[in-house]
């Protein structure tokens, strides 16, 4: 009676060490795959990224080549999505614009995450007035209407991709910053941290080796959602004329053409493709972020 249950026990408990059936990474992957919207979005987004990266190969025309004999023509065999006001191929512009929009979005999110990690860990590790100051800064950045500042910065320093990346990035750092700070604060008093400090570890080493791995999952989620927000912001800014300037194409400034009623009604191929591109990309990245959140942080149960 005492021997068999032991044997059963050993049989039912699957190998728990890494690489086996139950490794944390595997479990996270399974949770992610259960989130159908996220999986679909991942596939759709992969397709979009492939299309965008292969822009040079897929487009039949250079994106900035004007052709005044074919202004505003409907989609046809030569121009798959028609042409714009100066005869440029909309399909080619759409793909190349994707590079710009996605690039700006990812770069801004990366800047936001980097700033958030640096400032958040400083606030958490040092504490005291540094912490208070950084958190006050975070509150200011969060409560300020970012578009107002972006308009002002674009006005003073001139609209460009760099201005946009910096402007968008610096308004998104508090989200990651707070996560990292919270993690730093909660881990700081743990014994293994005190042990590392006691054996002479530099605070920076503690941050990189202990805090960052712990805070990585929520930061990844926050970063992903940041990318979605940044792409949306870039589109809005470029649409207003405050971002990427023509002739360089971005999904936002392609939509700029849709400001006249004639275009909206008669030439939907000019504004529907970039608009849908932005919407699908932002929606998709948001879903992926949700899926990542479910996968990496199962304690966040309630939906």
């Amino acid at each position: 009676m005492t021997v068999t249950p032991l044997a059963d026990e050993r049989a039912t408990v699957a190998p728990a060490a890494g690489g086996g059936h139950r490794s944390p990474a595997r479990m996270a992957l399974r949770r992610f795959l259960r989130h159908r919207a996220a999986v679909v979005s991942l596939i759709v987004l992969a397709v979009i990224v492939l299309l965008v990266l292969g822009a040079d190969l897929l487009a039949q025309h250079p994106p900035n080549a004007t052709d005044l004999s074919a202004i505003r023509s409907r989609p046809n065999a030569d121009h798959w999505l028609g042409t714009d006001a100066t005869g440029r191929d909309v399909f080619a512009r759409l793909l190349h614009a994707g590079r710009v929009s996605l690039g700006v979005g990812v770069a801004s999110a990366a800047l936001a995450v980097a700033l958030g990690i640096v400032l958040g860990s400083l606030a958490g590790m040092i504490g005291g007035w540094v912490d208070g100051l950084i958190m006050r800064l975070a509150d200011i950045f969060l409560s300020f209407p970012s578009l107002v500042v972006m308009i002002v910065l674009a006005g003073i320093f001139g609209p460009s991709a760099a201005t946009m990346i910096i402007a968008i990035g610096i308004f998104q750092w508090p989200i990651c910053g707070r996560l990292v700070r919270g993690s730093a604060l909660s881990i700081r008093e743990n014994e293994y941290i005190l042990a590392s400090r006691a054996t002479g570890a530099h605070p920076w080493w503690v941050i990189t080796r202990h805090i960052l791995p712990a805070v990585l999952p929520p930061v990844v989620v926050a970063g992903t959602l940041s990318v979605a927000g940044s792409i949306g912001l870039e589109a809005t800014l470029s649409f207003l004329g405050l971002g990427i300037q023509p002739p360089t194409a971005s999904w936002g400034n392609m939509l700029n053409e849709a400001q006249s009623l004639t275009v909206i009604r008669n030439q939907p191929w000019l504004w529907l493709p970039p608009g849908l591109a932005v919407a699908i990309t932002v929606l998709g990245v948001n879903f992926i972020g949700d899926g990542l959140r479910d996968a990496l942080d199962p304690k966040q149960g309630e939906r």
Partner: protein
Amino acid sequence: MGAYLIRRLLINIGVFWVISVAIFALTRATPGDPVAMMVPPEQLNSGSAAYIEARRAELGLDQPVVVQYLRWAGSALTGDLGFSMVSGRPVTELLLERLGPTIELMGVGMLCSILIAFPLGIIAAVRRNTVVDYIATFFSLGVVAFPVFFIALVAIYLFTLQFPILPSSGITDPSNPTLGNTIRHLILPALILGVGNSGRLMRYVRSSLLSELGSDYVRTARAKGASPTRAVIHGLRNSLIPVITILASDLSHLVAGAVVIEQIFAWPGMGRLAVTAVGQNDYSVIIGFALVGAVMVLLSNLLADILYTVVDPRVRLS
């Protein structure tokens, strides 16, 4: 309660002061000449070089930066924000002209988003995990993902072009400015602004109400025989506390949405003024716009703090 409010007031004023310093730094960073921004254009054009020099000294441009800041802040507080470098009109006048339409748009927009988000959020919370909930949640996620201007373009396509019922530009019909016409012009812009904002708000209402409905006092009420509706109303008031503070922070989103909507619908508001000013390198107007933005943030933070005190007795008594 008094102590809490006074502390919050001082903090908010401090924040505003810091922001004003940053804005002042921007005025000195512009490629434009501060004299050209602050001096009335008639005097600028007709004045001799000596006169311009005198004005330059008056503005304190040869003085230390701190003095310059104080002069600038002083004149800003008395309402002198300089003159537009494009039209020559006083910046304050331009801004005040456009303030009304923007506030109107943002106010009605917020009203729309509340009218959409609250019922949806309440129903989604009460009928949790049913079809209604899924539809409502998907609506809130989908709506947030679509950029505001895209929704606006589609709406214009549908309601102005395909089925011409609603106008899509301007604040009213210049040849026939009746109240009815004004309202018609307001519907599309305000509705789209509200819809764009309602997604986030609806999810907040839902999760807040859900957590209240699961709490002990609601369960006690049900146990003592209250009907489900009565219990929901019981929990509703407490669930509104965090939501009200969210409304105040929604201001940033409303402002951003308003700027875009003003551009699309040719609404004569401040956002449109600012975007045009950027295109024309009209630095004085841009700086004025920045200041107005900072004041709005200050006011909305104060309002949120006051509301918080009023709605949540725990804050009052702490």
